């Protein structure tokens, strides 16, 4: 079957198999920031925003994304310029191996859209699904706080 999806503002008309997962479709289209890890809805490495909400692309059937808007980390920043969230993650050492980072950045983007100044416990609650095996999470909490300051204009 054929579906039309909008990824980061670009429209793709793509042929898919009936039971294909959005994770596979996006990777095939070249959005390699969407990572496969557990493939069973339990690590969040494949998180993308679907109509603005963070979802796990490993268990979204591509067919249900027909006509909808998908955002991945490839859509952030412009050219050489990093998005403030990316900048904060880089500066705070929030990324070690980096495998969980694109999905975490996208979940953070969604979080800061609904809560521009989250407390530490809100950050932990809302990002709890994003498993990171490298960092121990502390630097990531610092990065989300810094990103929120950047986006609110409290820090350059």
């Amino acid at each position: 079957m054929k579906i039309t999806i909008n990824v980061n503002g670009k429209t793709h008309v793509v042929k898919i198999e009936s039971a294909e997962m959005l994770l596979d479709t996006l990777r095939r289209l070249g959005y390699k920031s969407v990572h496969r890890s557990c493939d069973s809805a339990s690590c969040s490495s494949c998180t993308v925003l679907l109509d603005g909400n963070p979802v796990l692309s490993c268990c979204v059937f591509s067919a249900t994304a027909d006509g909808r808007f998908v955002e991945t980390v490839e859509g952030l920043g412009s050219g050489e310029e990093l998005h403030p969230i990316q900048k904060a993650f880089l500066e705070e050492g929030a990324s070690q191996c980096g495998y969980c980072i694109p999905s975490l950045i996208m979940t953070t983007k969604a979080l800061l859209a609904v809560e521009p100044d989250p407390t530490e416990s809100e950050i932990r609650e809302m990002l709890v699904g994003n498993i990171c095996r490298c960092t121990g999470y502390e630097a990531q909490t610092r990065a989300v706080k810094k990103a929120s300051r950047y986006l609110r204009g409290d820090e350059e």
Partner: protein
Amino acid sequence: MLPNVKEFIRPETVQEAYALLEKNRKATVLLAGGTIVSQMRSSNIETIVDLRKTGLDKIVQKPDEIAAGAMVTAEQFRQDRLIADRYGDFFYDSFGLIGNWQLRNMITLGGSIAPRLGWSDITTCLMTVGASLLVYGQDDYQTLCIGDYFQIPSSERPIITHIILPDEDWRYAFYRFARSAFDIATLNMGIAMKLNDRRIVSSRIVCGSRPMFPARMESVEESLVDLNFDEQTPGIVRSLVYDNFSGGSNMIASSEYRNHLASVLAERAVKKIGEIIL
């Protein structure tokens, strides 16, 4: 991944969806949020019927009840204004413990009940508030309680279209115990009480993840009728639940441990109800 799917169909009415299901039940699966169906590996499934376009994603106030569409997501439900007005923070708090943000954006009410998952916190919470199901099947629409729905043989089971939440002025509390923050419940416990002044008129004691499907502890409920709610009540419920618990062992916990947890969580739930009224 389902290896043999040939058709992905997006019907626009429940009637259409049911007809598609009836065509070949063995080879058809209904798709709601996707978290369950995406994990299926059966080579028998050839048709996916997606319920997304059937308009079942709204929460509506009816004369004596609230009707929540089966495709309403857990996050949508806990953030909903009507639900907050009726239940205060009960669903906001208890659904907030389920899975994580991403999963709550995906999992639906109907999709959580229909697979008959023993560990579903959603089912326990909905049973606690006395929810029933509006279903569509060969007998057209009918209303069933959750337990009765599963009495229907799976070969004839209708489609859950709405969760019906009765208008009632009860008090609710929900607790779950899990081994870690992102884990299915080792055991969950929902308690609802209808009180006349301090007298317990009626109650629902719902225990799930036993690990079997959530069930009401009717003998405990009966013993509580007409008791006066006071400082002793949580302790009484604790021992009643301890004595009447029936559960099993699995890789997560032993039956004995669950028995303890059930009694402790019941006590805490009743204490919390007590905080509201005492």
